[in-house]
């Protein structure tokens, strides 16, 4: 049994690192899917198609009204029961975080696109751009400045929310920490380390978001 705090941390480091790697992997994949899905959502939501808008609205409300934890349970326990489809817990977490994040990022992208002057779309169309070219060359690049700061904030929420994956059996950083605590009873030390971990990952992001927001506020 480890005797001093530094020694304990050193001994438990590999286990914590393994958990941290899981947390970072789930978060990173969730962020990638949230971003891709969010851009797709934002583009679809600004096409002006009635039917699409209803579908997206339902999707959005489902993720706003139902807690992420319930979604995790639904996907992890529900899919095998109702669709005989079993997904490993790691990918369940990625899927749910990705879908939830996409609804959040999607609303940001939609808002950023809609805040562009209508004339940008018309000017783009009037030189013969296709829909894809219009979004790719004209609309999305200009929306980028408005959507980046709030999107980075959503990223930090995805990272923090990834810890819920523990409840469907993923051994991410918090679970790893709890396992060490069960063995050593050093809760203050380990939770301190967890606190530091999340802070080190999330603080630079929210700081970056603030800096970008200030820099782009008047351009």
């Amino acid at each position, binding site marked *: 049994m480890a005797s001093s705090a530094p020694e304990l941390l050193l001994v438990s480091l590999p286990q914590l690192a393994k958990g941290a790697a899981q947390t970072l992997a789930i978060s990173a994949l969730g962020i990638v899917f949230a971003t891709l899905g969010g851009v797709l959502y934002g583009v679809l939501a600004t096409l002006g198609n009635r039917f699409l808008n209803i579908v997206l609205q339902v999707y959005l409300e489902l993720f706003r009204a139902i807690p992420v934890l319930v979604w995790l349970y639904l996907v992890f326990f529900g899919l095998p029961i109702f669709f005989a489809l079993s997904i490993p817990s790691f990918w369940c977490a990625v899927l749910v975080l990705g879908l939830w994040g996409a609804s959040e990022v999607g609303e940001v992208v939609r808002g950023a696109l809609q805040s562009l002057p209508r004339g940008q779309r018309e*000017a783009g169309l009037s030189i013969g*751009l296709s829909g894809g070219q219009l979004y790719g060359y004209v609309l999305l690049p200009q929306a980028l400045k408005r959507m980046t700061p709030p999107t980075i904030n959503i990223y930090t929420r995805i990272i923090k929310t990834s810890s819920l994956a523990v409840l469907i059996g993923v051994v991410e950083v918090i679970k790893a920490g709890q396992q060490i605590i069960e063995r050593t009873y050093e809760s203050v030390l380990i939770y301190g380390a967890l606190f530091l971990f999340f802070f080190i990952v999330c603080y630079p992001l929210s700081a970056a978001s603030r800096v970008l927001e200030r820099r782009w506020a008047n*351009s």
Partner: protein
Amino acid sequence: MTALIEFQGFNKYFGEHQVLDNVDLKVSAGEVVVILGPSGCGKSTLLRCLNGLEQAHSGHLRLEGEELLAPGTDWRQVRQRVGMVFQSYHLFGHMSVIDNLLLGPLKVQKRERAEAQAQAEALLARVGLLDKRDAFPRQLSGGQQQRIAIVRSLCMNPQVMLFDEVTAALDPEMVKEVLQVIQGLARDGMTLLIVTHEMAFARAVADRIVFMETGRILEQSDPESFFSQPRTARAQQFLDKFSFVESLPKTLHKEVS
């Protein structure tokens, strides 16, 4: 001779409201047609229909004899032949001037960069803005932005240019530089459809004046007859409003209370 552009029995509705009512208008190649009329008379909508930014509801619209209201119309193709310049320029704010100009030629028309760039630079020089090649729109005055917007359309080598109140958002001192560019195009024999409230300009540049009200064409004539002796009372009334300011008498006595 077949007309380059032909509206025939053309109708357009916004919901229940009919904004264009049985419009018949023929424009030949090389003709400069100025459309006048009070706000809301449908003149801007007419231009926007020709560019496919608004959908027409019935009638015919032909470009070089080809029916545009047919279901299979490739509007991307049509828009390359019909350039449009807007009241608020709408340059792409995140791109330099030259990138604004080259987007269509390179991405839509898939032309060679060297050739497209040479054309863009020649046109920039022509409107006196070659030194703004690498500037961004926010660094330019309204008049400069509007001249760039005209060049952006010209770079697509269109057969027709549509001008939708292109000086309405400009300070008076910038109006001149934009109107000079348009008059230059007219002199070169380009086909132009112009919606404007600049009466003197309309008179100077037009081959024909079209006067519209409530979605209908009330009269068409050459500019001299239109401005000196309009045929309809409504046109006379419209012109009187513009000459009212010019002939306003000097305020002589101020009431002191």
